[in-house]
């Protein structure tokens, strides 16, 4: 059920209050808010921020894995990895589309990404240093992402929730592929086993950071939960992730690099140590090992592609009988001097 949208400025204060009450009632029933429904401006802003950040994470996340496609050590793994990175581009597409229903275009969002106005998941500011990372990213990073994302399948905004159902299915597939790569490597040579352990050591703590700061340092959580945008706190999801991962690590034969990690019989859950939150904030602020590189890569690809997007628009307009094809292009004369992509 949903209420009919009306332009916000024409709404009288009384009916504004009514709209808000009806909106909150939809949330209370755990129904979906749809793009044409009235919604508080702050709800819209929160969703744009969250969905865009998610979309950007998919697109930036293509880089650390994409850089290993050319070096994949078997043709089967090359196919798996390339198909996975391709799926991430697809996830970015669904999510940008969901954001467009909130009135912000893909171009605007991309520009906010490359200008640093919008963020993406900090995990992608860590480097990929061996092929084992392709497995570890699948197992731990995609695993953490799934813990974060599965509850979002029931998030209050319809297009986001529906996109998440599809995305979660594919993420789950990726996670299994990643785990299977690690399992295969663990059955290989000593060098391969060492490579897996080193990779897990490097990604464990950043994976825990993916759930965000501890609840007492997460200012947006309460409002997001009241709106049904978020359904679990950061610490709840982090606990769930640790409890799921420990038996998987054991089956794999790797050690998780946390001396405080222990099963707590009383709680029915694992106790575990805290990541270095100073490092977390440092990376969030832009000082991670790869922040500058990731954004520069995205900016270069976007700028280098400007002439192609302009050509497509001009061609479409000429096919539609319009004479001034350039009138529709809103940006980027600067692109003409950009480098050619892909030359060795």
């Amino acid at each position, binding site marked *: 059920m949903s209420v009919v949208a009306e332009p916000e400025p024409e709404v009288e204060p009384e009916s504004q209050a009514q709209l808000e009450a009806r909106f909150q009632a939809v949330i209370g029933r755990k129904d979906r808010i749809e793009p044409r429904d009235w919604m508080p401006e702050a709800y819209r802003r929160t969703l744009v921020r969250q969905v865009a950040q998610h979309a950007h994470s998919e697109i930036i996340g*293509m880089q650390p894995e994409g850089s290993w*496609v*050319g070096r994949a*050590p*078997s*043709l*089967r*793994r*090359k*196919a*798996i990895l*390339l*198909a996975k*990175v*391709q799926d991430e*581009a697809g996830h970015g*597409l669904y999510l940008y589309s969901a954001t467009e229903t909130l009135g912000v275009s893909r171009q605007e969002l991309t520009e906010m990404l490359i200008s640093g106005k919008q963020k993406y998941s900090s995990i992608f500011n860590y480097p990929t240093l061996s*092929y084992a990372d392709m497995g570890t990213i699948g197992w731990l990073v995609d695993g953490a992402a*799934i813990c974060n994302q*599965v*509850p979002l399948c029931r998030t209050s905004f319809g297009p986001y929730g529906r996109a998440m*159902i599809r995305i979660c299915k594919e993420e789950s597939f990726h*996670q*299994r*592929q990643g*785990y*299977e*790569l690690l399992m*295969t490597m663990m*059955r*290989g*040579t000593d*060098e*391969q086993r060492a490579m897996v352990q080193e990779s897990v050591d490097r990604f464990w703590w950043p994976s825990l950071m993916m759930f965000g700061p501890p609840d007492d340092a997460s200012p947006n959580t309460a409002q997001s939960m009241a709106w049904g945008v978020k359904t679990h706190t950061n610490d709840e999801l982090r606990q769930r992730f640790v409890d*799921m991962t*420990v*038996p*998987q690590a054991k089956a794999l034969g790797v050690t998780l690099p946390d001396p405080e990690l222990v*099963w707590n019989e009383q709680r*029915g859950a694992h106790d575990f140590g805290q990541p270095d939150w100073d490092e977390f904030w440092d990376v969030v602020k832009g000082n991670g090992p790869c922040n500058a590189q990731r954004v520069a*890569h995205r900016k270069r*690809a976007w700028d*280098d*592609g*400007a*002439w*192609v*997007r*302009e*050509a*497509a628009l*001009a*061609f479409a307009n000429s096919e539609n009988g319009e004479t001034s*094809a*350039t009138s529709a292009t809103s940006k980027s004369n600067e692109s003409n001097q950009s480098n*050619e*992509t*892909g*030359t*060795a």
Partner: protein
Amino acid sequence: MPDVRTHEPDEHDNAYSGLLVNDAHWAFGTDFEDPLAGVDTTVPDGVDPATLATYCLMLGDDALVLSQRLAEWCSNAPDLEEDIALSNIALDLLGQARLLLARAAAADGSQVPALPDGSPVPDEDRLAFFRDGVQFRNVRLAEVPNGDFAQTIARILLFSSWRLALFEELSHSRDAVLAAVAAKGVKELTYHRDFAGRWFLTLARGTDESRRRLLAGLDALWPYWAELFETHEVERATALAGVGVDPAGIAADVDAVVEQVLAVSGVDRPAVPPLAGVQGSKGDKGSTGSKGRDGRHTEAHSRMIAEMQVVARAHPRGQW
């Protein structure tokens, strides 16, 4: 130790569980129908297995090398739709390469590089990762660097027009495996050619900038075009045996297709001569000379192969 599933109250959450199920069948590429299931893999009468294997390497290397190049676009394309499309084409070609390399190995195991005893590396990977650059038999058109998006489109148009015509004939091969690989590939290559043809037209008639880049890209590739229609001795022998295709025989058909795209795009055929071979003489087997089919490549090929092979070669006993 807790059961993984006891922490999952929501039905959606079981996307995450099942990870510990010891089941190899869900891995990508293993739970799909085998495209060669039920296909007769015996080498047909009157066909020299070594020649057949070399021929399979030629067609397989064309696909592998271009796939490697196209995969370089991953995360670099002009927009997400093109990123996805270029990955699709790369994946199709990689699939073709795997079947053809496996066929080469099955026909003549002596062409598969030897590795230390007990190495679990499968034949397709031995061929892809443990041959040196000069043992690759791909045409040079497949290996040159991507250039910009326009040059990439021009290459896909040329390559897929040629390979589609070749595979249409190859689908009647006396070798049941090659026939099956070609029949599957025809559908893929039809899409590749269509994708490239539409973009070729778009760029030719889009903006001055796109047209300038397209013409430059086509000019850069044209020197490699004639090589695709020169008949190597191995191609001649397999064609005579009814298992391969003589590329000279498809030249007129391919030319007509390309001419049509050029005409509708208002693009003239480049006035650029073919690129010479590398040895300054005809090849020692009386073949087309020292070009891609003989393992004589461009400088960029070696660097590309080095990147492709670096992890695999560091772990000759590794399993992935």
